[in-house]
């Protein structure tokens, strides 16, 4: 019989890790890619929050003499057609990107949670109607539905958030509905009901909290998608309008005319989008592995 080193096994499983910091360190060692993602996400959030302090120039300040200036010491990433500093616009772009991403996920999430809870709880005609509606919405790819919504609502920050949030609703509603269906038969839900709790209270206090783990997994997975869709919408001339510095729009402007004279206008915003999505996806994968080990690939 092979000797089992209990202490080593416990360490490997992270069972004897105590305290928040050592737990964090443990997860980082278990998921090195996730740790890299987390670092990128932190940088991303940091530049979004402190854009005003971090940006070396005013992202909206135009100056004719600096038009299309190549990268140098004052303009680290060059200047665009209107002489605006590209680096400052990218730092402020993180704010737009993150705002749209997080807000659309939250909005879509709230709508999806309400629909999913009601569907799984009420069943009957409401559930049937919602299921068909969700089928219909899922017959259109995320980008197409968001594109139509954005075109219909008109370009503005709020409308972009709405346009991206609606196509995210079906997935959330599906996840919440299926958890609700299995949870409503659980003994603890029956116990709460037997104790005289109102249905609404049971749904919000007992069912909803138990659907949160898969939801957080879904939200982190959706964040990358939402950021990409925002960039695509802005690239297509919808989405967040001027003068907001949106990464996708920066590419859209440079794509047409200045590509030959100023390649830096194409390179840097694209790197920003890629890094942000890369980081959130890595981070999301790690969150999934930690919260929902069954889905681990």
């Amino acid at each position, binding site marked *: 019989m092979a000797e089992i080193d209990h202490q080593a096994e416990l360490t490997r499983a992270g069972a004897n890790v105590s305290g928040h910091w050592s737990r964090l360190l443990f997860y980082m060692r278990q998921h090195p*890619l996730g740790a890299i993602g987390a670092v990128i996400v932190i940088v991303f959030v940091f530049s979004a929050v402190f854009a005003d302090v971090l940006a070396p120039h005013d992202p909206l300040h135009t100056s004719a003499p600096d038009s299309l200036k190549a990268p140098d010491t004052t303009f680290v990433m060059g200047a665009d057609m209107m002489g605006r500093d590209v680096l400052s616009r990218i730092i402020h772009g993180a704010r737009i990107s993150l705002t749209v991403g997080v807000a659309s996920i939250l909005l879509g999430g709230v709508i999806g949670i309400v629909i999913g809870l009601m569907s799984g709880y009420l069943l009957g005609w409401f559930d049937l109607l919602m299921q*068909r*509606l969700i*089928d*219909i*919405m899922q*017959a*259109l*790819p*995320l*980008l*197409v539905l968001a*594109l*139509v*919504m954005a*075109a*219909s*609502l*008109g370009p503005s920050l709020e409308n972009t958030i709405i346009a991206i949030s609606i196509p995210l609703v079906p997935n959330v509603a599906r996840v919440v509905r299926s958890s609700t269906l299995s949870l409503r038969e659980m003994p603890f839900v029956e116990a709460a009901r037997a104790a005289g709790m109102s249905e609404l209270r049971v749904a919000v206090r007992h069912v909803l909290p138990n659907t949160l783990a898969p939801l957080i997994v879904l939200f982190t997975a959706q964040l*990358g998608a939402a950021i*990409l869709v925002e*960039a*695509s919408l802005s*690239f*297509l*001339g*919808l989405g967040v309008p001027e003068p907001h510095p949106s990464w996708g729009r920066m*590419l859209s402007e440079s*794509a047409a005319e200045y*590509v*030959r004279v100023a*390649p830096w206008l*194409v*390179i840097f*915003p*694209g790197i920003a*989008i*890629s*890094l942000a*999505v*890369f980081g959130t*996806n*890595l981070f999301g*994968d790690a969150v999934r592995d930690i919260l929902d080990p069954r889905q681990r*690939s």
Partner: protein
Amino acid sequence: MYSYIVRRLAFGGITVFGVSIIVFLIMRIMPGDPLTAIFGPEGMTKLTEAQRQSYMEELGLADPLIVQYLNWIMDIVRGELGRSFFRAESVGEMVLRRGPLTAQIAILSVILSWILGIPVAIISALRPNTAADNTARVISITCLAVPGFWLGMLIVLGLLFGFGYRAPQTAGGAGLFEDPGTVLQIIIGPAFVLALGQAAYIARMARSSLLEVIREDYVRTARAKGLNGRLVVSLHALPNALLPVITLSGILLGFVLAGSIPVERAFGTPGLGYAMFTAVNERDIFVMQNLVFLYAVVFVMLNITVDIIIAWIDPRIRYQ
């Protein structure tokens, strides 16, 4: 099998009908006057109320919503799909002219995604959690993160600066078999960019599916009877592991249609995606509404086709 197909088709029909209603409503809640798109904000101020009214009637926008909707459905049934605000040809003609290019891009991208994704998945699955597997994983996550339209711009730029090369802007209406050189030059770029994202998904799915299949008894039996490892994988494991990959690939093909909108813009490809981009920017509601409807029909049909193929390959699903 037939009842299965009929059931799937019926559900698909209901979904497409629902999509038509939703798309129609979204298009009609559009704030602002649809005529602004035609005459521009300045031209609008010069229009008298009577003129405005007559244009609206001419375009059928003054009718009650239900009449407008029924007219549109009749248009679809006739295969005309309505007219653009700006161009003489009907949307139906435009789809026939531009559609084949986008369809070729989509199909080529699926082929490329299998060529890129499956070998990577096999390498990863045979040696899970090694350096090769981890490299493959990082590359696939990178492929998912890089926006296709940006990569497209970089490719166009790189070819232009590096080799002074520009892909032809139009094949002059020639098909793939009439003028393969020109058409291939147009479609290879967008197809490659769109293939990368799909390949990442396919590699991921095929890897986990292979890892599961490799643990099955029949794979162990094949090994035990002395079949060499390469044949075990290619004859026993791979065919069974590919079922979920086929499903995924079909779904991804639908998403390629959406992805082709920004990617075709980046490459300047004269396909349907570019037409959608133009329509969106011109606020051409008739073109938008019909193209979105077309996307939905293709998407639903793809899903049904994939389900039927899967049911045909795997009898267990058919009889559920």
